[in-house]
C-alpha cells in the first residue's frame, strides 16, 4: 500500500507544481514507484513541467468518467524513469468535472499499485482543493516567505486540520533568499513557523535554474549544479527515510573566497544558515 500525498498551498504560484515534479522525479530516482496526479483541471501545468505534454491521450476526467478502460491507459510513463508515471488533468473541463468521492476511489486504486501518489493541488480552497485533498492521507504545504502566501497557507492548514482523518501536514518553504533573510527584509523560517507551526520538511532557495528546468521539461532535481535541486534531493531523502535525513539548511551560493579557503584546506566553512 502506498502513500497518497497532496501538495497544496492556498496561494497560487508558490511552487506546488514545481515541487510535485521535483519530488516525484526524486522519489523515482530513489527507486520508488511514483504516480504524479495533476488535479488542476482546466489549467493543467504538470505535464509541461515534466516535459510530457505531447504524450497525453487520456486524462483524469476520462478515467473518472470511464471513457478509458482503466487508469493504466491514462498513465503516461516518464521519459527518464520507468517507475514514474503522470496522470494528467483535462484542459477542456473544469473543477466540477470530478467529485471528492471519485477522487478518493481513484487514489485508493492507485496506491495499491505504487509506493507514492503525489497530487498537485490547484490554488484556492473551493472544489478543486476539496477534490485534491479527498484521497490524500498526508499533505505538504508549500509557501513562500512572504505575508500573503503565509496567510493563505495558514487558512489551508486550518482546513486540513479540521478534516477528518487527515492529520499529517508538513511545510516546504520555497523561494527563500538567504541574504534577504539575513538583512531582515524577508520573513525567516522562525517568522513563518510563528504563524504556521507545523513540521518543517525543507527549505528551497530561489534559483534561476528552476525557470530553465520548467522550460525544458527537465525537473531541477536532476541537475546536480542546481541549489534548488539539491534542496529537493534532501527533501526526497527525508520522505524516504525520515530518521536518516540530512539537517535542514538553506542552500547558498558559496562565495569565491570561501571556495578558495576550502581549496586551500583552511577548514570547512559552513555556509549554511537555518
Amino acid at each position, binding site marked *: *500500500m502506498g*502513500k497518497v500525498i497532496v501538495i497544496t498551498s492556498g496561494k497560487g504560484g508558490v511552487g506546488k507544481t514545481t515541487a510535485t515534479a521535483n519530488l516525484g522525479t526524486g522519489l523515482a530516482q530513489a527507486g520508488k514507484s511514483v504516480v504524479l496526479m495533476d488535479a488542476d483541471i482546466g489549467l493543467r501545468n504538470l505535464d509541461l513541467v515534466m516535459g510530457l505534454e505531447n504524450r497525453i491521450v487520456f486524462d483524469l476526467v476520462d478515467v473518472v468518467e470511464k471513457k478509458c478502460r482503466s487508469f493504466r491507459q491514462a498513465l503516461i510513463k516518464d521519459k527518464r524513469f520507468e517507475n514514474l508515471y503522470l496522470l494528467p488533468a483535462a484542459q477542456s473541463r473544469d473543477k466540477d468535472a470530478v467529485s471528492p468521492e471519485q477522487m478518493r476511489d481513484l487514489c*485508493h486504486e492507485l496506491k495499491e499499485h505504487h509506493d507514492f501518489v503525489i497530487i498537485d493541488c490547484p490554488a484556492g480552497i473551493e472544489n478543486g482543493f476539496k477534490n485534491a485533498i479527498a484521497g490524500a*492521507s*498526508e499533505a505538504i504545504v508549500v509557501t513562500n516567505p512572504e505575508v500573503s502566501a503565509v*496567510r*493563505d497557507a*495558514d*487558512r489551508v*492548514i*486550518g*482546513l486540513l*486540520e479540521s478534516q*477528518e*482523518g487527515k*492529520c*499529517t501536514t508538513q511545510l516546504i518553504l520555497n523561494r527563500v533568499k538567504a541574504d534577504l533573510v539575513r538583512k531582515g527584509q524577508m520573513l525567516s523560517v522562525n517568522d513563518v513557523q*510563528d*504563524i504556521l*507551526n507545523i*513540521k518543517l520538511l525543507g527549505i528551497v532557495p530561489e534559483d534561476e535554474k528552476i525557470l530553465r528546468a520548467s522550460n525544458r521539461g527537465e525537473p531541477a532535481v536532476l541537475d546536480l549544479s542546481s541549489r534548488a535541486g539539491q534542496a529537493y534531493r534532501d527533501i526526497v531523502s527525508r520522505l524516504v527515510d*525520515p*530518521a536518516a535525513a540530512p539537517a535542514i539548511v538553506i542552500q547558498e551560493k558559496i562565495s569565491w573566497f570561501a571556495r578558495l579557503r576550502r581549496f586551500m584546506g583552511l577548514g570547512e566553512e559552513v555556509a549554511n544558515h537555518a
Partner: protein
Amino acid sequence: MISNKDHVSLRGTRNGILVSISENCPMPEGLEQLKATLHQRRAFFAGSPLSLDLGWREVTEQDADLVIVSMREMGMRLLGVISTSQITRHIFEARGLKVIIGTLGLARHGARTRQGKPPLEPSAPVAATSPAPPAKAAPTHRPPAGPVGTVADEDESEEVAPSSGADPRSSSPPPTAPPTAPPSAQAAPASRALPTPGADTMLIRRTLRSGQRVQFPGNIVIMGDVNAGAEVEAEGDVIVLGNLRGTAHAGAGVSGKKEAVVVALNFHATQVRIGDLIGFVQATKGFHQNAAVMARIQDGAVATCLYGNGS
C-alpha cells in the same frame, strides 16, 4: 498536535484525546508508539477518554483485540473508533465499541471533559472601575454565579473568598456540554468581582487559524494564538493567552457590554472592535513588546494600554 514518527498523532479535542494511527503503520507498532507517547506525558493524559481514528484502515480480528487490550493496559478509556471502512466498523461493533464514520458523531457523544486542569494564575489586582478577568464558566443548566463568597452549587466549584490573594481552585468538570454550543464550555476558576454576573465563558485550548471564526454570547478565553484572518466575537471580554493577530470583537451584538475588553499577551492586531466602535491600532515597535496589552473604550474611543498596571 503531537506526532510520533508520522504514524501516530494525538490531538486534544473537547471530548478527550483523538488518536490517529496512520493507515500504513502496522497496528502493533502504532500501538507501541502510542503507549510510549502516553507514557511520556502520563500526568497530562492519565485517565483521559480517548477516541481512535483509523482512517480507511481495514483491521483484522487480532488487531482489534490488540487495540482493546492495549487500551486497558495504558489505562485509557476508549470512547470509540472512527473509521471509513465498513469492515473495521463491523469488527469493532462486534466487540461492543462505539463506531463512527466521521468525527461529527463525537460531538453528540456527551463525553465528559478533561479533569485535572491546573488552576489559572490569580491576575494582578484591578481597580473597581475596570472589568475584572473572566467570570467563572457555567454550562447553561447551572445557576448563574452568585455574589462572591457564596457556594453556587455543592457539586460544582466553589467561589473564591472576596479578599485578594486567595488562590482560585480548579473546578470539577461540568457534565455534557450542549451539542449546539461552539467548542467546549469548560469551567474556569473565579477570582474577583464579576463584571457581568451570570456571564458564561468559553475556553478554547488551541490556536485559531486564518478563516476560523468563534462567536459566543459571553466571554471567550483562548489558550493559543489568534492568527491573522481569524475572527473572535464575544458579547463579553476576549482574552487571548498568546499572539493576537486577527480580529477580536468584544462587547459584540445587541447585548454586548461596553465595558468589555480585549486582552492579549502579544497584541499584534491591527484592528480591534469593542461594542460598536472600531479601533485601528498603530503597530509601534517597542511599545507593545513583551507586555500584555488591554484594549477598551476610554473617552468614547477604543484605546490600548498595558494590562495590569493598575489601569
